[in-house]
């Protein structure tokens, strides 16, 4: 039973979350534009979905690596399969909302993405969350995750400082399946690969007989507002909201650019000449640095995710849950956060921007990211034991 204090706290937090959201809605709509408002609302939707589905990539990979429990990993593959179908159909056509072409998340394949994703995969096990995981957990009241987030920002900034070095190392360039194959072929190729992986993982699972419907099973207290969602609801929501993001923003959902931007703005305010770094002289980064931070769509969706998670957790009584904080966990958050930030910069994104949106966009760098991040996680899970 919840104490009256915790009930009050949840109420206060809920009102706070809704109020702040309304304030941002107003600011975005009146001083920037309606598309930014849509991106914000989509962010809130993502925050709510991530929270309720407990869709953590990190924990899911760890469960498979340590215990050969493939439930979460398989649901991620189903999510990728759905996203591949939806995105391949709609990419490079015009958005429903605006007369503008929607483009995919395509990045080069080279040393940078390999090293970056490996570091990220390793670090996310230490940090206890990935790109989206860190955001929604921080949004739902976890103070330790805020530490991780702060160092994520710092790591991204340092990553941007070294960006030039890493991206000048050998690279094959960007490879998008849509450039060489038709849409049907792209869908079939990727679904084929996903199916092979799904079967392979199912074989490796220690459960004697895998119940493939464990992903769709309703839990005893599944509730849209309060309860834990079955994984399939999380899968469908995330694909749905990423699709909406594609429509509203003209490009898929991404998370980590904003962290680098926030870090750069802080550094700039302190007095560092961030604008002379070659990464921050690139086309979009240089505008983003000069512009208001709220003009950056990634920032806007991140704020939405934090607020969405805040609202969702206060509605389901989560805010009052006590989290144990000890020095070792904080240290893990510091190291993990920093390395995630650094790795994500090199790898052109995190599990959302590179893996989820990249694969959905038909970009092979998404698969490279997946592979090397997973390898990094295998090592990371071992290192994690020192801290947790």
């Amino acid at each position, binding site marked *: 039973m919840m104490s009256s204090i915790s009930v009050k706290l949840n109420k206060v937090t809920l009102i706070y979350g809704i109020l702040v959201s309304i304030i941002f809605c107003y600011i975005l709509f009146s*001083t920037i534009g309606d598309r930014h408002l849509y991106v914000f609302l989509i962010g809130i939707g993502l925050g709510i979905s991530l929270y309720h589905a407990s869709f953590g990539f990190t924990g899911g990979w760890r469960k498979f690596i340590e215990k050969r429990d493939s439930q979460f990993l398989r649901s991620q593959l189903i999510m990728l399969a759905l996203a591949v179908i939806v995105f391949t159909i709609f990419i490079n056509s015009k958005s429903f909302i605006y007369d503008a072409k929607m483009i995919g998340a395509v990045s080069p394949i080279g040393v940078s993405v390999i090293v970056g994703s490996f570091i990220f995969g390793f670090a996310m096990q230490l940090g206890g969350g990935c790109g989206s995981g860190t955001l929604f957990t921080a949004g739902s009241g976890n103070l330790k995750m805020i530490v991780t987030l702060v160092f994520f920002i710092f790591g991204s900034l340092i990553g941007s400082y070294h960006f030039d070095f890493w991206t000048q190392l050998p690279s094959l360039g960007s490879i998008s399946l849509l450039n060489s194959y038709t849409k049907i072929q792209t869908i079939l190729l990727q679904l084929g690969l996903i199916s092979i992986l799904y079967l392979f993982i199912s074989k490796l699972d220690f459960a004697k007989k895998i119940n493939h419907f464990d992903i769709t099973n309703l839990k005893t207290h599944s509730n849209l507002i309060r309860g834990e969602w079955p994984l399939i609801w999380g899968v469908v929501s995330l694909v749905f909201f990423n699709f909406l993001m594609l429509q509203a923003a003209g490009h898929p959902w991404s998370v980590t650019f904003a962290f680098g931007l926030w870090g750069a703005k802080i550094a700039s305010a302190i007095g560092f000449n961030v*604008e*002379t770094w*070659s990464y921050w*002289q690139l*086309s*979009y980064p240089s*505008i983003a640095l000069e512009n208001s931070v709220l003009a950056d769509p990634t920032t806007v969706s991140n704020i939405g995710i934090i607020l969405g998670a805040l609202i969702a957790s206060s509605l389901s009584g989560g805010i009052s849950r006590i989290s144990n904080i000890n020095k070792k966990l904080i240290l893990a958050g510091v190291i993990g956060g920093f390395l995630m930030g650094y790795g994500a910069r090199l790898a052109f994104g995190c599990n959302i921007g590179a893996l989820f949106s990249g694969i959905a966009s038909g970009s092979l760098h998404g698969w490279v990211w997946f592979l090397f991040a997973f390898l990094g996680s295998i090592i990371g899970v071992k290192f994690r034991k020192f801290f947790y």
Partner: protein
Amino acid sequence: MNLIKKFAILIAFLFTSQLASAKTNALVDAEWLNNNLDDVFVLDIRNKIDGGSYEIFKEDHIPNSVHSDYLTAGWRKNVNGVIGQFPGIKSLDQLISSIGIKNTDHVIVVYGGVNSTDFGSAARIYWTFKTIGHEKVSILNGGFKEWKKAGYQTASGENQITPSSFKSKLNKKYFASFSEVKKAEKERNGLCLIDARPAAFFTGEKKKPEARTAGRIKNAVNLEQQKTTSDNGKIKSKNEIKKMFTALQVDEYKGYISYCNTGHWAATVWFALSEQAEIPNVKLYDAGMVGWTVNPKNEVVSG
């Protein structure tokens, strides 16, 4: 390397470093240039605005000068849909190195000498050099036309270039950002906007095609660029400029930002106020009205 060679290099270094520390004037005249031709780098920027080009340069130019077309060589770039902007230090390093200018060179900018807009090209390049930390730059007042009028020797032929490795060092002393312009409200914080365009643009009667809306930025005063030069494309004297400035009745403010449509005309007014009249704290907002009107939520005033 033997001792004598090392010593010679040391002397040469000391000599050139002394040259480097000498203050350079913003303007030079043809006589000065003729006397110092061996010690400077003459940059001829003739282009379509003055009816010139590389071809015309090849026919007749100041001896040892190097040509770089102001409009097409990359001195200004389209940045995110806004034309004519500062292209960034990496791009400028490449451009400047490709024409062989070294960090130690005293650059003399030579324009056609035709009219005020032509002077603007020189002013804009002058401003660009100062913004990348290269203080040793001057404009030949009156441009190539002045050189010809004085009867000095000219040469013909192609560019003779030894590529160099020029390194920029960003100096935002004369560079106004969008947020500075947005916050400039002379009565409130002492930052005065100066619209350098002819009056018809200021009032909104005329509009540059690339700007979304006709008009000016709120609270700006008008100092038309053509008024700061004489008919022959020479910038007016320090006293004349100062008189014009006083007539605007904005002396009491603490900072000034010159703007126009794309930072070309504004460069003339910037040069006139900052370099010729030596008024302190004058900056240039190079994105101009084209940049200002990209976001339709930025207020534009007319009338």
